[in-house]
């Protein structure tokens, strides 16, 4: 028999435990003798620390220890750059706890370890800190002016600045029949997963052993740097992954707490737990987006794009953390998008301000770039009297253009190339689905609102980074185990890998356990980011399964004393004529030989990335008098090469769209001029809810398998979010066309829209 799992919407292996309350998230982990850590965080955005008095806190009943920077080694480690480590950033790195100065509201100042969280918070109230407040940099304009320096030794607030280019933008603009310049703002918002971060450290300096529970995303990278920071051999550091309640880019990076919790454990000699509460989460976990883009476009009168010129300014917050310059650099790189843009240049600036540091959030830079470019294309279509879809079709790269070298648009990255695909077909498919040709924006709606439809196209890279590992073992009890260095942040990795393993081994998927992430499971691992798990761990699992079949066949040949070439593998067993040896039997045989029936694999795509691509369409209705927008319908097409589990792919797409609608209408970290976060609760930082869910049609296309991995996968985790603001912005702009207002800044709140309309006399 041949079992088929790949491409089937099978139910998930994870679900039973998660549905019955048997999940094991970090706060569910209980260890004997565990104590709880809480962190005193800066109430000021920029201040010098004059003194910290911990005595009253230390004396409180139930408090085990308290410390601040002065109690630690003179040389505290700095949080390393993992990605986009541009020259100049080394001047803006963060130490785990504030030394002399605080630079954002929420920066760790002191730590209390107590018998429980209640007592720990009581003790925080007894810590006396004298601050001398300093002038606050709360905007990128103030940062650029540099009248106040956040990091004095750097001599400026510009983290770094560079220009990337291809072609000859100046010439393109000089000769163009049409040019336009616009300023776009993608506001500060972020991942805000439902589970806040949390860690448990067990630090035994004698062993030596540092075991850190609650790790995820990039555990092997983090282990390397934690080992260095604590002067331990890598093998003495164990990062243990638990169930994780969502990542979306922000979770699992090295943060101050990844150092503070081990320090707390080392000081107290016992296990220490820290669970980020939601108030902490909104200032302590990376923010994202926050890009201002001045974009110019040059085109012929017929709407053929000749060039783009841009300045991208990113508000990086107070420190450059592990994600380095990813957000602004990717915003710059993805500005030309899926279009033929012969000439392009972009001035990219990374400005440091007194806000929470910025890191990646699902579709980093892409969401921002697509908003700017797709809005600009609609303005150009309007100016030139060309239908927006027609304008896009004239400029999309065609199959004949691909592969297409986009050039070195990120310093230090290799020359990037868009791989094969059919961008116009994905747009065409979308236009048919959404009934674009029949759409009449002027049609009477009967409910007093006006409607608009907008489209946006995107490309999305996937599966960057180091190789990924997988090991498959069959046990004599019949169980099959996959171990991988890839992490799961809750996206269904266990199910996906089990599907691949089950199909290639031709066994029942329910026999398979998938263990992931922890550094104790496998020798090396790449981790989970950039929509890479299915591509990287999936192909590693396939390779391991093939190797396991080979090994099983060799064992069967030994057992039968025959030539392995005469044997066949089918239905989870090795066959010779009518005889068969199941994997379970072969595992038992292997054990009698003192070995395990097991196979390892490492999948390396040699950094050749595939680009998923597609298009979004939004249909909205807006109440002119109140500025309230309803997204009535939403469509997207996304070419992902091959869908491993269509139901999970659908979940990624729809989840991405709703998250993108949040970024378009709701999510916003608002700061005042003193650098105080005004949206410090989930009552004020607004996440999407079920109120007014649109009808969403998400179509995964499987017409263009990736050439860079045997299974043809392209990442499917981010295509749902990256073009939402572009499509919705265009829909709102179409609805408001009679008022000639500029939809250039997110989020599109009722207040913002009414202000625009009021200005237009409506």
């Amino acid at each position, binding site marked *: 028999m041949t079992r088929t799992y790949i491409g089937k919407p099978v139910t998930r292996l994870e679900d039973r435990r998660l549905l019955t309350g048997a999940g094991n998230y970090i706060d569910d982990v209980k260890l004997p003798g565990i104590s709880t850590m809480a962190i005193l965080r800066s109430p000021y955005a920029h201040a010098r620390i004059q003194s910290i008095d911990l005595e009253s806190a230390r004396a409180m009943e139930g408090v085990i220890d308290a410390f601040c920077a002065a109690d630690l080694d003179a040389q505290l480690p700095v949080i390393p750059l993992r990605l986009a480590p541009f020259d100049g950033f080394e001047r803006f790195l963060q130490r785990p706890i504030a030394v002399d100065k605080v630079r954002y509201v929420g920066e760790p100042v002191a730590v209390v370890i107590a018998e429980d969280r209640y007592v720990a918070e009581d003790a925080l109230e007894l810590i006396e800190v004298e601050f001398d407040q300093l002038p606050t940099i709360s905007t990128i304009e103030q940062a650029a002016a540099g009248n106040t320096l956040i990091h004095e030794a750097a001599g400026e607030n510009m983290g770094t600045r560079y220009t990337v280019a291809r072609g000859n933008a100046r010439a393109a603009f000089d000769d163009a029949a049409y040019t336009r310049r616009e300023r776009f703002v993608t506001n500060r918002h972020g991942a805000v997963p439902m589970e806040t971060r949390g860690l448990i450290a067990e630090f035994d300096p004698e062993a030596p052993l540092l075991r850190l529970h609650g790790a995820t995303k990039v555990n092997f990278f983090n282990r390397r740097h934690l080992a260095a920071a604590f002067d331990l051999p890598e093998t003495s550091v164990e990062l243990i992954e638990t169930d994780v309640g969502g990542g979306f880019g922000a979770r699992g990076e090295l943060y101050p707490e990844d150092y503070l919790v081990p320090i707390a454990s080392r000081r107290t000699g016992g296990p220490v737990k820290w669970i980020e509460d939601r108030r902490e989460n909104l200032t302590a976990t990376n923010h994202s987006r926050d890009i201002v883009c001045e974009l110019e476009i040059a085109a012929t009168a017929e709407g053929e794009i000749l060039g783009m010129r841009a300045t991208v300014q990113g508000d990086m917050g107070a420190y450059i953390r592990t994600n380095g310059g990813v957000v602004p650099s990717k915003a710059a790189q993805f500005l030309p998008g899926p279009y033929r843009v012969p000439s392009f240049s972009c001035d990219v600036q990374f400005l440091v301000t007194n806000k929470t540091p910025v890191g990646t959030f699902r579709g980093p830079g892409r969401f921002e770039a697509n908003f700017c470019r797709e809005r600009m294309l609609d303005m150009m279509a309007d100016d030139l009297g060309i239908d927006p879809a027609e304008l896009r079709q004239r400029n999309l790269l065609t199959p004949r253009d691909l592969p297409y070298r986009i050039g070195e648009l990120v310093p230090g990255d290799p020359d990037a190339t868009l791989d094969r695909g059919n961008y116009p077909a994905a747009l065409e498919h979308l236009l048919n689905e959404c009934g674009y040709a029949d759409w009449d924006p002027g049609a009477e709606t009967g409910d007093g609102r006006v409607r608009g439809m907008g489209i946006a196209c995107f490309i999305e890279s996937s599966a960057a980074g180091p190789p990924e590992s997988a090991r498959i073992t069959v046990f004599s009890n019949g169980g099959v185990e996959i171990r991988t260095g890839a992490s799961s942040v809750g996206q269904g990795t266990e199910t996906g890998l089990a599907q691949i393993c089950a199909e290639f081994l031709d066994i029942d998927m329910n026999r398979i356990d998938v263990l992931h992430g922890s550094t104790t499971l496998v020798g090396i691992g790449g981790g989970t980011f950039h929509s890479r798990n299915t591509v990287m761990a999936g192909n590693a699992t396939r390779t391991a399964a093939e190797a396991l079949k080979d090994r099983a066949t060799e064992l069967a040949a030994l057992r039968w004393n025959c030539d392995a070439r005469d044997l066949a593998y089918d239905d989870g067993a090795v066959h010779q004529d009518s005889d068969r040896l199941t994997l379970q039997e072969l595992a038992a045989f292997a054990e009698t030989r003192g070995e395990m029936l097991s196979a390892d694999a490492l999948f390396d795509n040699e950094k050749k990335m595939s680009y998923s691509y597609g298009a979004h369409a939004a249909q909205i209705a807006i109440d002119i008098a109140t500025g309230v927008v309803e997204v009535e319908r939403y469509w997207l097409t996304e070419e992902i090469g091959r869908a491993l589990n269509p139901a999970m792919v659908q979940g990624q797409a729809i989840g991405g769209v709703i998250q993108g609608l949040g970024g378009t209408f709701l999510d916003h970290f608002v700061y005042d001029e003193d650098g105080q976060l005004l949206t410090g609760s989930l009552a004020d930082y*607004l996440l999407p809810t079920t109120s007014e869910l649109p009808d969403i049609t998400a179509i995964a296309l499987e017409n263009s398998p990736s050439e860079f991995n045997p299974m043809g996968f392209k990442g499917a985790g981010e295509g749902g979010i990256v073009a939402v603001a572009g499509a919705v912005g265009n829909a709102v702009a179409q609805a408001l066309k009679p008022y000639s207002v500029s939809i250039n800044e997110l989020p599109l709140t009722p207040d913002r829209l009414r202000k625009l309309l009021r200005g237009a006399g409506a």
Partner: protein
Amino acid sequence: MKPSRFNYYAVDSIDAAISLIAQQGEDARFLAGGQSLVPMMNFRVAAPTALIDLNGVPELSNVRIDNDGALHIGAMARTRQLETDPEIAEANPLIAVAAAYVAHTQIRNRGTIGGSLAHADPAAELPGIALVCDAEIHLRGLSGARVIEAAKFFDGVFTTALADGELIEKLYFPPWPEQRCWAFQEISRREGDFALVGIAAWFDMDASGAISDCRLAAIGAGDTPLLLDSPAQTLTGSVPSDALFEKAAETVAGDIAPFDDIHASADYRREVAAVLVARTLKTAWERRR
């Protein structure tokens, strides 16, 4: 986000509650549904030294309808009961409709009408309904019982006429004529969020077809829920029409004093208050026809 220490007392009568809170001093608080107080305690922006839990006081949960249709709602009646109890909806449909706008089911299952009024969030629905319905608020303290009109109860943002140690015993809603036209509308960022601005309105007609009496109230348009006297004057004595409603809406600006916050500007609230006045009146009138 764990609350500070406090002493907890469960009581079973109003008398016990008011004598106990007097003993516990000025930092003691009554605990009603806890849906506003407990979040503030978890953030430690409120740190009462003692909580007197009113959830076990049966007399505070009574809901009674008089023969004349007047409605008595005990302070501890849950918002969810206001939303779903058909007798309340019959006695005063505006209460039931507005209650459904309060937060979410889980909050409405615990939150109480007395707690909402005592908390006095200017954007909350139930204070606006008490105001527009000319409710009387029955208070009890050590010095005795007193009755205060809703119009005199709200002093400012989160402040009321409640004296130290005083609690709300019940609300009295006057009889609701069967023919009354009424409506409630609000704009919020998401379902269940506090209103950016909301309008409650009702009007009665005389035999000639003119409006004989009416009330309008706004929430989210000032430091307290506000009665809108100017549109009420415009309406009284006139025959309902869309034009009349628009005219009434134009007068609202002088009656409100909206504020800026991160969710909407004062300008937004001002103009949307006017929009909602007209829409609410139209809805009320359509309901009648």
